[in-house]
């Protein structure tokens, strides 16, 4: 298939190219987000909806997996640093507790970012994805669910931007 054909197929099916997928991941993972990450996702329009919807509905996406790796690396670094007598003398949680301390709010945060991106995309399919997520209430992480649900409620009840 020609390059143009592939692009046409991607566009028709809503699949994202690798750079486009990276743009979505960048928005979900950015810390200060000074490089227009949200705008880049909004530019993708309806084609970004499946990926964002997947995140919103709790898929263990690549951003979450890499975040877990990051937290695990940090745990190992801190533990090793303290074992050298260079850090504070306090103990450190077990690895799972340490990772989960950051993971729960992190997953809620990327869900909120998915909500914001969908709302900004504002296409019918994006709104459908928001309503679906709100109806299904499949947002995970009970301690953080209220935040995401509240955001969903506030946006879904608003007219499209």
């Amino acid at each position: 298939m020609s390059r143009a054909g592939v692009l046409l197929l991607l566009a028709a099916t809503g699949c994202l190219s690798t750079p486009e997928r990276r743009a979505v991941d960048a928005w979900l993972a950015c810390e200060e987000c000074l490089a227009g990450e949200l705008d880049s996702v909004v530019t993708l329009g309806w084609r970004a909806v499946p990926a964002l919807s997947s995140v919103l509905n709790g898929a263990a996406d690549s951003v979450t997996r890499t975040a877990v790796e990051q937290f695990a690396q940090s745990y190992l670094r801190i533990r090793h640093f303290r074992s050298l007598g260079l850090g504070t003398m306090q103990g450190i949680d077990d690895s799972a507790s340490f990772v989960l301390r950051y993971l729960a709010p992190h997953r809620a945060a990327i869900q909120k970012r998915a909500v914001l991106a969908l709302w900004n995309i504002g296409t019918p399919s994006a709104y459908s994805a928001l309503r679906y997520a709100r109806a299904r209430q499949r947002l995970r992480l009970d301690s953080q669910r209220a935040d995401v649900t509240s955001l969903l409620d506030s946006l879904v009840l608003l007219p499209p931007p």
Partner: protein
Amino acid sequence: MIHRLALPSTPALLTAVLVGCPLDSCDDSGGPSLPAPELTAIQVVPQVLYLGATEETFSVHARAVDQWGFRYPATLTWLLPASATLLTTSGDTAQFQVPLGVPELEIAVSADGQLDVLRVLRAAPLPDMDLALAAGSAPGMAGAMVRGRRDNGACTDLSDVIAFVGHGRLGRLEGAPACDPLALVAQVGMAIHEEGPLWNASAQAIDGHSDPPKTVGIEVWTTADVDPSVLAPLVDDEIDEANAIFHHNRVGLRLVRDPTIRLHPGSPPVPSRCDGPDYKAEPGWMAPAGPFPTNLLVVLYAPTVTGLGAKSTVFTRRGLFCRPNVILINRLDRVPTTLAHEVGHALGLVEPWGLTWGHTNAFTGLRPAQNLMHDASSERRHLSLGQIYRMHHDRRSWLTQPLFTPGLDCGCDPYSSGPPGNCPTLVADFRATKTPPINCTSMPP
């Protein structure tokens, strides 16, 4: 004959932590234990070394690496054939001498069952060229590729230098530096980065090698809805994460927290962004209004840190630095490296200004995703020499502010403009073990 052993692949940290623990079912109980830090590989630098027609003495650097990629304190054993002589060893560096008549050989370095091999070839990598190793060459094997052959490795004229060599790779030559700076670079063990202009090492000191590291006092603040005694150990984890990263990169800085976590009174409202526009052009940066001290680096664990995106949508950031001394960290959405990253901004890592704001996401010439100043990477932990240098000396760094260390400002040039020479470029990296102290204030204006 020495054969290269198959080294283990990079260990999968996650495997060690969450084996059998899917994301959706992780809990606090029954998690597998972590392996102790252990040596997983030896990496000799460079991998291949070309000797010139006359150069006989050279230095080799080897790194013992633990399972999460940091240098590991191991006792190295150098193995070499009888045709070569081990002159000196110092830490992870060894100096060798190879007689002129030896065409090629292999030198191995081992520790704890791991092995890596350096191939030494008596030939130039390109036709009609010679590698003139500067006298006193140190880790990183800084050198110069010259046309034709030379009578000795210490060059006297670089007019025919066509490339620099560092880490066993060729680099491009920028400008027409005199011979002395090159020799000096080599003497202090600086690897010449393949993308960076030559840095005149005589200009300024690298405090990154100072021992003990310089203390950077920080004061932690939060809001009244949080119990400081609960927050304290969590903050200390993040401070130790920052200090571990600084330690392993030889930044020469150590964050020390004031024991008291202070509560923001909440009136005026707890800042979630810098006053006014988030980033005013210099010199108009402002810290959030509030009761913060001016002589310490303030870290406020705020309920939220906001940004503005498409269609005026407000979203939450994980962290933000507000000049001159206030770091905002989102208490409800942060990662363990957020504090270290924001401290990097506070210490001058904000260039290219207006383009990436110090973030390395789009940088070339270094490992952007592994760099601490990447805005999103899960792998970030590295700081380059150029970054470390700016943390100490750049006028944008908190450390050069009048309230901290008056008068210490060597005037680093920005990333992409200004005459090269005063500072290593941001992407310049180093593998030196010791740099002789040079009085920063003695540099020419």
